């Protein structure tokens, strides 16, 4: 079963073609990595898949339902959630409140301007459970703006889990992390991927080799190759794209 697919996806920015006829099929339950040199259009692709950009042509389907014309918040409600390359959190709220605010979005609570904010506490148990999952429990009351880089990445993942996604897009989850942080994220992604489909953009090849079932290689906005990691890394076009670098 194909969880997420793109057909002939194109995105033009004033004459510059950022995404060029991208076809993508992500199988349900797999961990699919998208790799490519800088400027290959990975984040643009994520923006197209999650609704933050509208395609110039082509379409995106989530479990065979077209979603390319929907607003990002509508796509989220259909079960596709994403994290951001540069940590995007609610800076003035505490870590716990960040997760609570994210969790309550599906309820009627956010519209209730007449109720006390204490009514948000109903989401506290679930929020704490999520923080437990991403190992942020001891920082629950810290203002999100005061977190370290690695901690913000963890909060990112927690926030993207709040919407109970069937498909999770993770944009460079290990960016800017040292080896210990990377190991932690690898473990986290593996746990989170159980029962879900995960698509991740990654630069770190060891992460890709450890996690990915299949990968897609992008270059200049086009798909260069797609398939199982071991097959793709030996593909001569892919090797050339990385300028002869050992695709480890």
């Amino acid at each position, binding site marked *: 079963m194909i969880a997420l697919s793109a057909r002939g996806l194109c995105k033009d920015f004033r004459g510059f073609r950022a995404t060029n006829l991208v076809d993508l099929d992500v199988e349900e339950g797999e961990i699919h990595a998208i790799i490519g040199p800088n400027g290959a259009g990975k984040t643009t692709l994520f923006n197209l898949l999650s609704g*933050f950009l509208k395609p110039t042509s082509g379409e995106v389907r989530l479990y065979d339902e077209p979603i390319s014309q929907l*607003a990002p918040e509508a796509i989220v*409600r259909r079960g596709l959630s994403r994290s951001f390359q540069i940590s*995007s959190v*609610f800076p003035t709220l505490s870590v716990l409140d960040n997760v609570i605010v994210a969790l309550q979005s599906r309820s009627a609570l*956010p519209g209730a301007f007449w109720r006390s904010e204490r009514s948000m506490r109903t989401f506290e148990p679930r929020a704490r459970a999520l923080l437990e999952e991403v190992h942020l429990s001891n920082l629950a009351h810290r203002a999100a703006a005061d977190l370290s880089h690695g901690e913000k990445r963890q909060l990112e993942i927690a926030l993207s889990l709040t919407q109970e996604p069937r498909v999770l897009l993770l944009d460079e989850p290990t960016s800017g992390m040292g080896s210990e942080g990377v190991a932690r994220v690898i473990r986290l992604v593996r746990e989170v991927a159980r029962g879900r489909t995960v698509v991740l953009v990654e630069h770190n090849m060891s992460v890709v080799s450890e996690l990915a079932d299949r990968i897609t290689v992008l270059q200049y906005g086009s798909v260069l190759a797609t398939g199982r990691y071991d097959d793709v890394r030996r593909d001569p076009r892919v090797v050339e794209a990385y300028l002869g670098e050992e695709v480890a």
Partner: protein
Amino acid sequence: MTALPVTRDRARRGAALVVAAAALILLILPHVVYPVLALDILAFGLFAVAFDLMFGFAGLLSFGHAAFWGTSAYTTAWLLGHGQSVPVALLGGTLTALVVAVPVGFLSVRSIGIYFSMITLAFAQMLSFLALQWTDVTGGENGLQGLARPGLLGLDFTNSMHRYYFALVVFALGCCAAYRVVRSPFGKTLVAVRDNETRARSVGYSPTRFKLTAFLISAALSGLAGSLFVFGHGVVSLEVVNWRTSGEVVMMTLLGGTGTLFGPVAGAAIVLLLRDVLTTASLPVGVVTGLVFVLAVLFFRRGVVGTLQGFLKARR
């Protein structure tokens, strides 16, 4: 809500103290300044609080809030002129402001930044023009005078003191409403949407819906404030829909402290008292007030109350 218990209790006690002090000041205010001026402080104070719901909490700067203050003012005046009781006139004014805010809000909140400010200004100007032309209802350039304010529950509204204390009750209710809105799941989410709209959308929120709701609440409270203003003076004129009124409420809010909930009341008091003192001393009101505003923006970015709050937090 999720602060450590010790700081939370200290903050609560501090807040209770401040509320008590403010209540005391407001109770004796009409004995310190003219009751009519005191009522103006209440009216503009509530107006500024309502304005700050948009600016400080939703992050949208409206240059046309006089549209709601003024629409309500004229409606209240019309209702009083047609023999309605004061509560009915106040309610009518508030509801009319709310009704006007629906199309204005719907069309405005899709724009951001300066575009939002310009659209709101444009709508206010349209209403200003309407007020000028619709002389049958608004009295045009002459406005409406000598509005009857029938007494209530033994209160005599020809007495400015009675008017003030009645207005104080209404003001308090308005402030309670503003407090509730800010300290609600809605208010908390509104701040999140303001701080990071992208993240808010990616967890399923529709920013437009939040901004519109905030807009409507702000407009309704602005309307209540505007009706208090007319109730206080017994007259209405074109100044209530003038862009200067829209600008004044911005200034009052910034002086008092945006995002502090009740800082704007202090800002309103400062502007109005300053104006009163300067006029009595025959000093140029506009120049001095403007100068104060410039100095505040340069050195007290967070306004009087905001700076005080910051100072107290640092000392803890």
